[in-house]
């Protein structure tokens, strides 16, 4: 029998037995929606961790200079050579950002209260405006501000009871460890309560350099942004090789422990390190792995429930249709042809389930992202402005669809096989097997 006839027959049978299939359709749609919502949200949570880290560290791949002559200050003094190394590596990047960081040696004072920062970043706002879309602060606004500007985290602003437009005193330590201060105008309060963003502030790089006793063209790290993290290991190796040719470089850093070990060594002057975002992230990789493991476990349980309910339903369904299948056999349909028709029926059911399930999953995700989860301790790292976000890359979507098709296939393979092998006379008489 030609394929198109088999398809037409399968469509007709599916319509004809639609009432019988309703329970299975509901189960499959609901199961698919849950699996899709679960994987989308967990993927969104992981994306939020990486996005937060990208904004925090300022890139995906970094060159950092560690100056042992100045208490291991992070400092790059030769931009020309570093830029030459990046060019020589022949890596295609989207953007380069240069940042100065005084880390936890920055304190914000306001009205007698002090809040120590975990990071005070000096940035080139003209190059990083898109990193702060919620603040509305850009190079033009920065140029119009008379005083040095500073953007503070919401938590810092709340602790100091200040708002945008207030003047604060920023205290930092110079690279030689002396206190220095300057008055700054708070130009934005960043609504970022994540692990990275709780106590960090951003100010102009050249201003911070001046305050820290660094030259105007110096910085702590050069960050390269790519479209995504794919192939980051290879890119890091290429950059490492290029840096090694022009600058005194540390050995390749594959994980955080390597970085810690290398930093414990002594050397004269500045040594350059090539570090990728996953190396920084290795501290929270366990957390991400746990999230992924939990998500896979929930995925497996859902898939099993779906399989079990499909198995039972198909068994009943095909049992009820035993006379009809026997009649088809009596009319001369081959067992293989009947099996094909039944599988096409199942495939049609799976397609409808996927469509309904996908729409349902969007609804679930939309409902879940209506609420703010920022108050859950330790959960902020997975959120975007306190809310859950979803992400469903095509490969993950294909896997989810494959699960539904595989479930239907597995659920029907044995009952369908049995139904075409039954004793024909018994089946036609409506007898039980």
């Amino acid at each position, binding site marked *: 029998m030609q394929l198109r006839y088999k398809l037409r027959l399968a469509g007709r049978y599916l319509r004809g037995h639609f009432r019988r299939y309703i329970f299975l359709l509901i189960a499959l749609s609901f199961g698919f929606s849950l699996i899709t919502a679960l994987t989308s949200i967990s993927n969104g949570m992981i994306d939020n961790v990486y996005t937060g880290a990208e904004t925090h560290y300022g890139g995906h791949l970094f060159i950092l200079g560690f100056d042992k002559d100045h208490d291991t200050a992070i400092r790059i003094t030769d931009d020309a050579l570093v830029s030459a190394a990046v060019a020589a590596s022949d890596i295609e990047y989207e953007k380069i950002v240069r940042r100065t960081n005084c880390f936890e040696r920055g304190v914000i*004072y306001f009205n*007698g209260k*002090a809040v120590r920062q975990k990071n005070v970043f000096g940035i080139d706002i003209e190059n990083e405006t898109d990193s702060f879309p919620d603040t509305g602060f850009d190079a033009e606004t920065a140029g119009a501000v008379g005083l040095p500007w500073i953007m503070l985290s919401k938590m810092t602003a709340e602790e100091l009871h200040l708002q945008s437009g207030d003047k604060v005193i920023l*205290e930092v330590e*110079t690279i030689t*460890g*002396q*206190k*220095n201060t300057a008055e700054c105008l708070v130009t934005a309060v960043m609504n970022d309560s994540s692990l990275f963003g709780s106590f960090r502030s951003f100010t102009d790089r050249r201003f911070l350099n001046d305050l820290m006793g660094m030259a105007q063209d110096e910085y702590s790290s050069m960050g390269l942004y790519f479209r995504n993290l794919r192939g980051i290991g290879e890119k890091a190796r290429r950059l490492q090789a290029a840096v090694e040719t022009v600058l005194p470089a540390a050995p390749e850093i594959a994980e955080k422990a390597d970085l810690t070990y290398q930093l414990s060594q002594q050397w004269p002057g500045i040594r350059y390190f090539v570090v990728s975002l996953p190396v920084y992230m290795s501290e929270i990789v366990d957390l991400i792995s746990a999230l992924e493991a939990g998500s896979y476990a929930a995925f497996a349980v859902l898939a099993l429930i779906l399989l079990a309910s499909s198995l039972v339903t198909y068994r009943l369904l095909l049992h009820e249709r035993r006379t009809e299948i026997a009649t088809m056999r009596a009319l001369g349909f081959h067992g293989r042809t009947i099996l094909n028709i039944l599988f096409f029926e199942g495939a049609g059911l799976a397609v409808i389930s996927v469509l309904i399930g996908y729409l349902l999953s969007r609804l679930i995700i939309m409902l879940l992202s209506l609420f703010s989860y920022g108050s859950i301790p330790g959960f902020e790292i997975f959120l975007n402005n306190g809310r859950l976000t979803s992400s469903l890359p095509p490969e993950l979507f294909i896997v989810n669809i494959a699960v539904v098709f595989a479930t239907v296939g597995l659920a029907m393979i044995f009952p369908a096989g049995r139904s075409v092998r039954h004793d024909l006379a018994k089946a036609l008489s409506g007898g039980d097997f």
Partner: protein
Amino acid sequence: MRKICIIIGLFCLIILNGVSAVDGQVLLKQADALVNFPETDFSAEYSIVRDVPGEGKSSTECVIFRRDSEEKYVIVITEPEINKGQGYLKQGDTLWFYDPESRKFNSTSSKNRFQNTNARNSDFTRSTLAADYDVEKTESAKLGRYNCTLLTLKANNDGVTYPGMKLWISEDGLVRKYEDYSLSGRLMRTTAIPSYQTVGKKFIPKYILIVENLEGAVVDGKFVNEKTQITITNPSLARQADSLFSKTFLENISQ
């Protein structure tokens, strides 16, 4: 003739300025010598009370042992109960903090705050004013009942926390007050030492009052600065056992 007078006048000014700078440096050396113990050890009990306006007072008690000749000190925290047994060990340029709970030593900076008070870890080491600062200006000043010399100092190395300082030295050569300034010239901290006690020929502060100039709160409509008062009792210049200036001592004492 007029030109010659001007030149002579300028020359005299330069000489006088030089003399006063040298005098200032001598004063610094004297001040250091009065409170340092290069030939003996020093020990005392310190009571440190931090007063945060609007939040109340918190108290820390500790015992300090100093051996200036080897640039060492040991501090053992005795109060509050929660921090009891914690300790600091300074050996040359390295400062260790010991936590009996984790039983670990972590290196810390002498520029860090001591036990979250307004005192710095560097406040407990020997005085090195003459070595660390150059005198920029010397003038006479009255500080309460004391006739003082007011020295404006500028750090000559990167090792100090505050690059600028104003120092009041009374006629007996003792430091009575000092103000710490940031690199940009902002007043950060004021320290007053109203009275000293003597042990032998050495002077040890009785009270030290540290005022944080940037920290405080408005109380009853008035800005009140955060302050820390240090009271020093039972000072001694008796020789201490060598084993006291070691990690083992801190580990044993907390058990």
